[in-house]
């Protein structure tokens, strides 16, 4: 079912996208309303803040990053707070998207073969709704990693308050969670920018073209257009 | 110490008993460790508690508090029974062969001559048997005469079987036998053992007898006088030895000369009483060095009164105070508390003023309530100290101390700030009798003054008063010699020179009268140069040699050690005569050959004695004199007919006994001890107070002083009570909980230290609990680190020879606080 929105002579798409998503505005479909985008960028920004203050602590190879923020001790001081903000944003994200991110049985294959299939452009897109399995898997992966980072991060923030075994586990968990997060993030960024033009805009302006929607998320497209059910 | 700290390294067996050297003498204890490391010496520790000394022991034996005499007599019995004593030594160097008179006897815990009403013995009942014709004493060199000392000793100790030791001391027989075997392994010429003890022996109502038992054991094992041997008292303060040597107690003058008794009104009478007559001896006569007593005394009087002391006025002897009774400090405070003197029929008032230097009587006195009561009776009190100690603050003592409302106490208290040990020059005499000079490290803070300035200025003011106003007996003060460069602040090196002594007239050389041994005004080389005619002066004959014409010998720091035995003759000065091992003549056999060639004390080289400074006339060939030159017998005493509570030691329970005396239930405690009788002198019965309690110090603290120092409070933050695990379980006490210990006199709270290191003791097979706590805390001190004075609980009970209180054994109850 389509919705006709009053034309008032300004960027109507952006205007509508402040509050609504999954609607057609002119030739654009609103994919992410403002709150979704703010949450996304909160997670992204806090993550990068953590990354830039965490990497120099992780390895001296990135020591120069520490210099940028005023040295390693500044990193030690602010990284936990960025981490805290990152955890809060991630929590908001989880709550915000939880209902949309339920993995169906078929989608579980996205953890392995289906992802490769997708990368080879061999996927049958026809049944893909607003989010494909890969995106859902990424959502859960990053959520899980964020949780790991949070739990281990708290222990590492206050090392004197925890026993040695907890600190040892925390160090490992923080490492593993970070690597997991970082690797999947590389794909996320790649796919959302260079690999699939038009995607980045969905998270900036909030809108995608009909064509984009039809190519990448045909089922969702059909729902917006009122062509299904 | 008969020997010295360093000499401990020469021992094969080190018995630590009645002391806790690792904790309370850690720096000296290094030599015990040295012996352990370099010669595989065995450290044997006998203590109710496994202490930090016990922690490094090769053999640890528990013992019930205060039963050391039984334990040691058990070892003596074992040595005799197993023939593990040094027979050759015993025959020539002890009074074992002496025949004791027929009057001597021992029955049911009492020696002959006991006066029950007075709690005293008639010591003449214990005399040796003298031949009235020759005036020499009978001996039996074979040691077989039933009345010779050896046979009497054998008979006396016969009751102390290993089984009896177990019954009395609670020590398992196996453990006791292991200790006895280790200790008596030195009862021969090849091996040497030493004993280290401290106040764990001294502070009992049988304290002196405990130490005597140790001395007897060492004589029997042939360990006295030998490098690595001896009976070694570990002194608990840096200069307590120096204080003792310089008239630390009321009945001695400097150098252990006797304070004149009231009966000796002239010097002649006094010297007759004080100078012992030489006794005829088994083979060799005694050198009886005390026959020089008149020289020491005349020189002391010349030192005290200078030019005012003349031959005509008996060197001012009449100005010396005479004693008409017991002025030991427990008796002084008893008089003070009761407000009347026990002497002169209680007619005289008690003391009205008190000056205390470097002493905290409220803290260190037993039965603190009585001490505080005594202080409250004073008109004035002068405390010279570094901190406001309990004595200075007695008037504001908490309620539980029996402290009265401060407004009701009329005592005027003066607290004079004193410099401490690091803030003045002077000397320390250590346990090894080494008089070591030390230099001031920093200036005293604020208005603090050195002790000698405080004393001198008071003295000068008092003398001025006497000079101006006369008074009852001005001569005693007015005639005191005070010839110091700065009379208000005498330099301590001038004092040391005075203690050393100098010639007042030219002293002729006794070998060649035409020559002058010492010219008038010269410092003496040693006490051998002292004269009885007033031509020498000497403040303390024992210290003579410490500051000669060659300079201040106590400042010497040459660590050359040609003997290899750690004697260090050119390091400081050791009294007497720079001798490092006392009685060292006994380190050699009858021919002057050392018992052990690797540990030579002294030996006869055909012309003279060489090695250590000989405890013998240097050119007297072997066989001339007995080895123990200070005794009229010339030999070591296995039988000592001079002590107030018996010529042989006997096991007695503490004055607050936890059980009957197994050996003689009718005479449970030391019969020669008289109890104090004021209303605060209460003693607990075992049915009400069933637990034995003892007190001690810890390494981290120094007496009642360091609770003022934050860093040491960090190391040992507060009062604790050591409790055996089994007792804690019975009482439901957990480690770290607060507990309360109560005796008949007072109670104390502390943190429970539940430990495996204290086991239940046994007496006659029945378990008796023992607990203990350290004594460092009081109602003054750094905030947060105050506590109850340990002596709130201890009884006013004293040894009948030294009048040292029985801090080490009393009865208490224990409960959760």
């Amino acid at each position, binding site marked *: 079912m389509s919705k006709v929105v009053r034309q008032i002579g300004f960027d109507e798409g952006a205007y509508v996208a402040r509050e609504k998503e999954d609607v057609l505005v002119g030739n654009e479909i609103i994919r992410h309303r403002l709150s979704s985008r703010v949450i996304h960028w909160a997670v992204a920004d806090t993550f990068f803040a953590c990354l830039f203050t965490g990497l120099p602590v992780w390895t001296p190879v990135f020591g120069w990053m520490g210099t940028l923020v005023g040295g390693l*001790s500044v990193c030690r001081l602010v990284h936990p707070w960025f981490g805290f903000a990152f955890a809060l944003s991630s929590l908001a994200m989880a709550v915000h998207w939880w209902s949309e991110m339920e993995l169906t049985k078929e989608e579980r294959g996205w953890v392995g073969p289906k992802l490769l299939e997708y990368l080879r452009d061999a996927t049958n897109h026809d049944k893909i709704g607003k989010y494909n399995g890969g995106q859902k898997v990424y959502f859960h992966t990053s959520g899980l990693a964020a949780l790991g980072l949070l739990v281990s991060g708290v222990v590492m923030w206050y090392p004197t308050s925890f026993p040695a075994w907890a600190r040892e586990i925390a160090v490992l968990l923080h490492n593993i969670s970070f690597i997991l997060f970082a*690797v999947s993030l*590389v794909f996320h960024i790649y796919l959302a920018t260079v690999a699939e033009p038009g995607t980045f805009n969905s998270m900036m302006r909030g809108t995608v073209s009909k064509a984009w929607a039809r190519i990448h998320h045909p089922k969702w497209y059909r729902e917006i257009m009122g062509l299904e059910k | 110490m008969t020997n010295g700290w360093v000499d401990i390294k020469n021992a094969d067996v080190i018995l630590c008993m009645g002391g806790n050297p690792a904790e309370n003498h*850690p720096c000296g204890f290094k030599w015990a460790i040295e012996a352990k490391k370099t010669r595989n010496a065995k450290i044997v520790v006998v203590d109710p508690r496994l202490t*930090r000394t016990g922690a490094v022991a090769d053999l640890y034996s528990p013992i019930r508090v205060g039963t050391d005499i039984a334990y040691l007599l058990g070892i003596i019995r074992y040595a005799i029974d197993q023939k593990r004593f040094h027979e050759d030594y015993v025959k020539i160097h002890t009074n074992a062969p002496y025949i004791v008179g027929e009057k001597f006897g021992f029955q049911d815990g009492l020696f002959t001559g006991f006066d029950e009403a007075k709690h005293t013995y008639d010591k003449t009942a214990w005399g040796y048997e003298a031949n009235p014709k020759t005036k020499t004493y009978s001996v039996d060199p074979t040691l077989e005469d039933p009345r010779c000392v050896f046979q009497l000793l054998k008979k006396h100790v016969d009751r102390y079987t290993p089984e009896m030791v177990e019954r009395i001391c609670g020590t398992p027989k196996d453990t006791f036998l292991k200790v006895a075997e280790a200790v008596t392994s030195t009862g021969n010429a090849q091996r040497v053992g030493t004993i280290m003890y401290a106040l764990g022996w001294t502070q009992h109502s049988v304290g002196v007898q405990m130490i005597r038992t140790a001395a007897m054991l060492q004589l029997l094992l042939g360990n006295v006088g030998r490098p690595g041997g001896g009976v070694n008292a570990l002194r608990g303060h840096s200069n307590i030895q120096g204080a003792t040597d310089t008239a630390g107690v009321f009945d001695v003058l400097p150098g252990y000369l006797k304070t004149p008794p009231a009966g000796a009104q002239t010097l002649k009478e006094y010297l007759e009483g004080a100078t012992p007559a030489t006794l005829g001896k088994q083979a060799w006569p005694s050198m009886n060095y005390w026959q020089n007593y008149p020289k020491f005394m005349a020189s002391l009087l010349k030192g005290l009164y200078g030019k005012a002391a003349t031959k005509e006025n008996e060197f001012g002897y009449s100005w010396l105070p005479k004693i008409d009774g017991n002025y030991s400090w427990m008796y002084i405070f008893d008089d003070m508390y009761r407000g009347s003197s026990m002497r002169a029929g209680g007619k005289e008032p008690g003391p009205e003023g008190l000056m205390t230097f470097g002493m905290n009587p409220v803290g260190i006195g037993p039965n603190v309530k009585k001490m505080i009561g005594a202080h409250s009776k004073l008109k004035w009190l002068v405390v010279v100290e570094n901190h406001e100690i309990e004595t200075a603050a007695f008037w504001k003592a908490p309620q539980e101390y029996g402290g009265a409302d401060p407004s009701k106490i009329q005592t005027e208290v003066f607290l004079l700030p004193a410099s401490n040990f690091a803030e003045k020059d002077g000397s320390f005499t250590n346990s090894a009798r080494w008089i070591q000079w030390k230099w001031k490290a920093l200036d005293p803070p604020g208005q603090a003054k050195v002790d000698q300035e405080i004393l001198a200025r008071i003295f000068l003011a008092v003398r001025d008063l006497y000079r101006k106003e006369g008074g009852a007996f001005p001569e005693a003060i007015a005639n005191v010699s005070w010839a110091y460069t700065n009379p208000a602040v005498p330099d301590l090196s001038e004092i040391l020179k005075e203690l050393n002594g100098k010639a007042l007239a030219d002293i002729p050389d006794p070998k060649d009268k035409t020559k002058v041994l010492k010219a008038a005004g010269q410092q003496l080389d040693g006490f051998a140069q002292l004269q009885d005619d007033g031509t020498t002066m000497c403040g303390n004959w024992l210290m003579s040699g410490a500051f000669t014409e060659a300079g201040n010998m106590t400042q010497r720091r040459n660590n050359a050690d040609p003997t290899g035995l750690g004697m260090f003759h050119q390091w400081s000065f050791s009294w007497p005569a720079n001798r490092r091992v006392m009685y060292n003549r006994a380190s050699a056999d009858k021919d002057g050959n050392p018992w052990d060639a690797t540990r030579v004390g002294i030996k006869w080289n055909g012309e003279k004695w060489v090695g250590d400074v000989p405890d013998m006339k240097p050119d007297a060939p072997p066989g001339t004199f007995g080895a123990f030159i200070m005794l009229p017998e010339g030999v070591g005493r296995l039988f000592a007919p001079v002590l107030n509570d018996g010529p042989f030691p006997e096991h007695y329970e503490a004055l607050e006994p936890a059980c009957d005396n197994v050996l003689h239930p009718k005479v449970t405690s030391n019969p020669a001890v008289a109890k104090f009788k004021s209303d605060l002198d209460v003693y607990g019965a075992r049915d009400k107070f069933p637990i034995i309690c003892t007190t001690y110090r810890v390494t981290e603290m120094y007496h009642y002083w360091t609770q003022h120092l934050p*860093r040491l409070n960090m190391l040992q933050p507060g009062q604790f009570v050591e409790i055996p695990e089994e007792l804690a379980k019975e009482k439901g006490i957990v480690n770290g909980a607060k507990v309360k210990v109560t005796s008949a006199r007072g109670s104390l709270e502390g943190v429970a230290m539940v430990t495996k290191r204290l086991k239940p003791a046994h007496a006659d097979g029945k378990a008796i609990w023992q607990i203990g706590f350290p004594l460092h805390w009081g109602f003054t001190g750094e905030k947060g680190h105050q506590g109850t004075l340990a002596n709130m609980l201890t009884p006013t009970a004293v040894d009948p020879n030294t009048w040292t209180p029985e801090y080490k054994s009393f009865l208490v109850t224990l409960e959760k606080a």
Partner: protein
Amino acid sequence: MSVQNSFEVVRSSAQVWGSGSSLRSLPAVSKLVDTSTCIGCKACEVACQEWNDLQVVSTEQRGTYQTMPTLDPSFWNLIRFDEHEVDGGIKWLMRKDQCMHCADPGCLEACPAPGALVQYANGIVDVNPAQCIGCGYCATGCPFDVPRFSAKTGKMSKCTLCVDRVAVGLEPACIKSCPTGCLHFGTKEEMVALGNQRVSQLKAQGYAQAALYDPQGVGGTGVVTVLAFGDHPEWYGALPRAPRVPMAVTLWKKWLRPIGFLAIFGAIVGAFGHHLYHGNKGHLDPGPVGPDEKG
């Protein structure tokens, strides 16, 4: 208290390319702690505090002779007291707890701050507070639970083996103060020899299990300890039986970090390659609008 540069640094925390030239060499130094002759007098505790100008730590009596439960940022040398029943007898064991100056120091391994922890050519592991970021990783890296983080200064602190004294030819303060001579200081070689001599003496005296504690799991330590009950190091203030740099730290530094590095860069390179090979997805219009689409 760091005096870096007075000794050749051979290892420094968080360096990409090593640290010392290793051209100048020094014999490794070591303390010897002979627990069998330690009398627990705590002189070393006081000497350590005084030499290093450390403040008094507030303590309370908790039913033990031990000064405090564990090391403190201002207390680097602690005698640990333990009571054990052995063959029916009581043993009161005392051990000087402090930084062990491991040959393979876990603290240094774990430390992320360049130069905050250094190991000199003579084996001393030193802290440089100026570089320390107070992250506490060193505590996680230490198998002996030694480094302490001070909330007041935000820095880690621990025994430096009195490097300032050693640098001028003096022995550490604790050694200097020991009255019984249960503490010694010298080259590692000498200390091991001396320690072994005591061990054989103890064995001859009936302590068959006596041993010299110089755990090889951390490459040996700069504090070697004589234990009469060498088979029970844990009796001595929880001395670990076989200490190693914790697995977590090794895994992190030796495995996870390179793996993570590779994975992240692999992903980036992969993405790049993917793009070169596959190009954009949907760069063209998908074609005519189907019948299902209204426009």
